């Protein structure tokens, strides 16, 4: 379906994220063309058929027609509900990251992108990924809003300062795709380009090994070091035992219940908030005693600590 409008879209290189979008667009295009065609033909036909013949043409009094009006209200209503449901389903797919996704940290700044790998390697404006594997991008901005857009994958997500957002894709074949910034960010907004370079699994491993581990070890190593230097371990154990605060072990991805009777799943944004604004959510059974680490830990530091916490499974 939809080959008629394929010329409007770039070649789809991540069918897992894009197939639903393409089919939906084709459906809307076809339905729209049929209705637009009908309306236009009716208009032109009426204009010719009922062309004014004399100055005193008489016209009939037709004020309304309930059956007709209900019909042309209900049918479009049903159609748009189909479109809504379809769009929603496709969007859920875009928001649901497969469990085995390979994670890459993204940092956006005026005017470029930095991609960080779990080995500590950092690359600017070139995103290297293996083919056939879901890739999860965990993104944040160092300054203003940016937006990560890969037309070939039909994905887009704004990148915000002080907050993590994510997006995922799975490129099936080795090759290259264009990354754009689509949130206006000043002078060189249009030059904030990057390329996704998709390798075979083997080539990617080789490439990653070649990059080394950057300076100061991998993010996980730096994170482990930081929680020791910053004294986090004084209050938070890494072995599951409770100290003044809850343990870091088993924290990642767990359901956190709070004194306020609300709960949340521990993710990047939760951990970040707990570091910068510890009093916002107090875990059940603990006191509000921690001070904010605002200004003491940089965004990079926090990302590294999160990476370390992720390794502390039960």
């Amino acid at each position, binding site marked *: 379906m939809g080959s008629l409008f394929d010329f409007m879209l770039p070649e789809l290189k991540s069918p897992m994220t894009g197939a639903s979008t393409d089919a939906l667009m084709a459906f809307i295009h076809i339905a729209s063309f049929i209705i637009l065609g009908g309306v236009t033909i009716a208009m032109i036909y009426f*204009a010719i058929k009922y062309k004014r013949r004399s100055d005193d043409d008489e016209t009939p009094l037709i004020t309304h027609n309930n059956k007709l009006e209900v019909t042309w209200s209900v049918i479009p209503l049903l159609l*748009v509900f189909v479109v809504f449901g379809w769009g*929603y389903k496709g*969007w859920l797919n875009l928001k649901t990251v497969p469990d085995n996704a390979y994670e890459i940290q993204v940092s956006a700044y005026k005017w470029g992108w930095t991609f960080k790998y779990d080995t500590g390697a950092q690359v600017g404006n070139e995103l290297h990924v293996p083919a056939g594997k879901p890739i999860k991008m965990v993104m944040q901005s160092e300054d203003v809003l940016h937006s990560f857009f890969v037309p070939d994958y039909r994905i*887009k997500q704004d990148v915000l300062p002080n907050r993590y957002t994510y997006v995922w894709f799975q490129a099936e074949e080795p090759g290259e795709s264009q990354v754009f910034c689509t949130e*206006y960010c000043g*002078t060189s907004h249009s030059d904030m380009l990057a390329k996704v370079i998709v390798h075979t699994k083997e080539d990617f491993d080789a490439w990653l090994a070649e990059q080394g581990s950057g300076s100061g070890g991998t993010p996980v190593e730096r994170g482990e070091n930081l929680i020791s230097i910053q004294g986090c371990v004084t209050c938070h154990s890494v072995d599951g035992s409770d100290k003044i605060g809850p343990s870091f072990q088993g924290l990642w991805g767990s359901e956190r219940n709070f004194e306020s009777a609300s709960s949340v799943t521990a993710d990047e944004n939760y951990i970040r908030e707990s570091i910068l604004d510890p009093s916002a959510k107090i875990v059940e059974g603990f006191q509000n005693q921690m001070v904010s680490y605002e200004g003491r830990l940089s965004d990079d530091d926090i990302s590294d600590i999160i990476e370390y916490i992720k390794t502390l499974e039960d």
Partner: protein
Amino acid sequence: MSTAEVTPASTGNKKTLKVKRFKPSESPKNTYLTDEKGLWAWMTTVDHKKIGIMYLGSVTFFFLLGGILALLLRTELLTPAKTFIEADTYNQFFTLHGAIMVFFVLIPSIPAALGNFVLPMQLGAKDVAFPRLNLASFYIYVIGAIFTFIALANNGLDTGWTFYTPYSTESSSSVIWVTLGVFILGFSSILTGTNFIATIHKLRAPGITWGKLPLNLWALYATSIIQVLATPVLAITVLLLTMERALGIGIFDPALGGDPVLFQHFFWFYSHPAVYIMIVPAFGIISEVITTFSKKHIFGYWAIALSSLAIAFIGFLVWGHHMFTSGQSAVATTVFSFLTFLVGIPTGIKILNWVATLYKGSIEMKTPMIYVFIFLFIFSIGGFTGIMLGALAADIHLHDTYYVVAHFHYVMMGGTLISFLAGLHYWWPKITGKMYNEFQAKVGAALIFIGFNVTFLPQFIMGSQGMPRRYYNYIDQFTVFHQTSTIGSYILGVGFLLIAFYLAKSLMSGEKAGSNPWGSRGLEWQSTSPPDFHNFDHTPVVINGPYDYHKPMEEFQLGLANDHDAH
């Protein structure tokens, strides 16, 4: 002369009036243009017609400015890298193009310019409810404009017309001058809206029940409600932004604990309804013109009237569809997508009602009617692409690309501006008393139609292919689309120049129009052209509705009430 019986609904009086049938005089004696002359008389006038003309002049001036900026932008985009201006200049130009066109052209164009002129006339009233407030609204608009010009002369503005934070809090351009300008401008909008609501409620001539209210006034009524309810939110938003910049209060700036997404919520809570401030009045004009030139009763009067109100209300609940990729919550995203589709339905109903009005009509393809046909085609494309953008998965791909640029130009330019042209040509003989050259006007309409589609159709394709908006440079694969689009914009430019030429010429050497050149049943056509200083010689009593084309013209006359009977 015969007599007829009329119940004066607007007075709430059950008494039935006996009125003489009345035919207005053909030759104007003391028109609003001849009554008081001179610059000072114009500047201090409280006559709604003159104020409408002053708005028309201002809106035209700003349209010229915004249009020149558009042509410069399109010229820069002829080549992928620099063509003739620097990136910063380009960023300022697109910001100003957007801000000027939205705040100074599209929002006031129909309500403040054409609406001011025809609203009291369609009601059979002498003026709006608060004539001095009306003049004040105009000067507030001028003051808002002055602030914007100060910004222009003083570093410009490069944030995009949406002022998204945190870019707008750290940009070195004159954000504060413009936000204050927009803040002031908002009062003009609110006051005009209030004035119109009061006028429609209180100043309807005897005989004009809500069911005989011209659809143009239903549309202006719905618009006024949005203006009064939504504009204060814009005022609060730009004020907070100003405080953020000047004082660093930390509402939007993440570095101070603020939330940049909150700004987007605030901004779109006004700016989405603002889209309806622009488009709903357009619906009013289309309803008037399509009946006049098919000489037939409107199809589905109540459906059209009430769908304007429905759009006004649902329009408040859909702002989040501008933010599907922003990082707002999943629940919000889903709900906003769902509600967005609901607002499409009343709009679709209107289109079908208008087309059905043509059925068995007596259709005359004069220039205003040609614009209505252009509107129906172009605005439908705008609507369908809106459905595309409301669908979540599709929006993720298309958001902030040229597809969106094309979509909102099809809606706002194809909707508001095309219907503004329809209205301008339709009421031009009434406003000026002169006819324009019909042939030249048709050539102008053809140029607009061709130029418009050549400009914006390629933008749908390049947007789908991934071309982001607000780009100064672009990658080579988009070159051919950009160049086609630029050529289209030049054709549009020539079209607008032609329109300006023959309208100006008609003022000097146009044929006399007569009171009702189109044979319309609308009340405003029952006065002389140009209208009498007080709109009508006598307070009219409305016997027939504005769309009663099934009654022959000779029988279609106004009642003439003795003034002490009518009031």
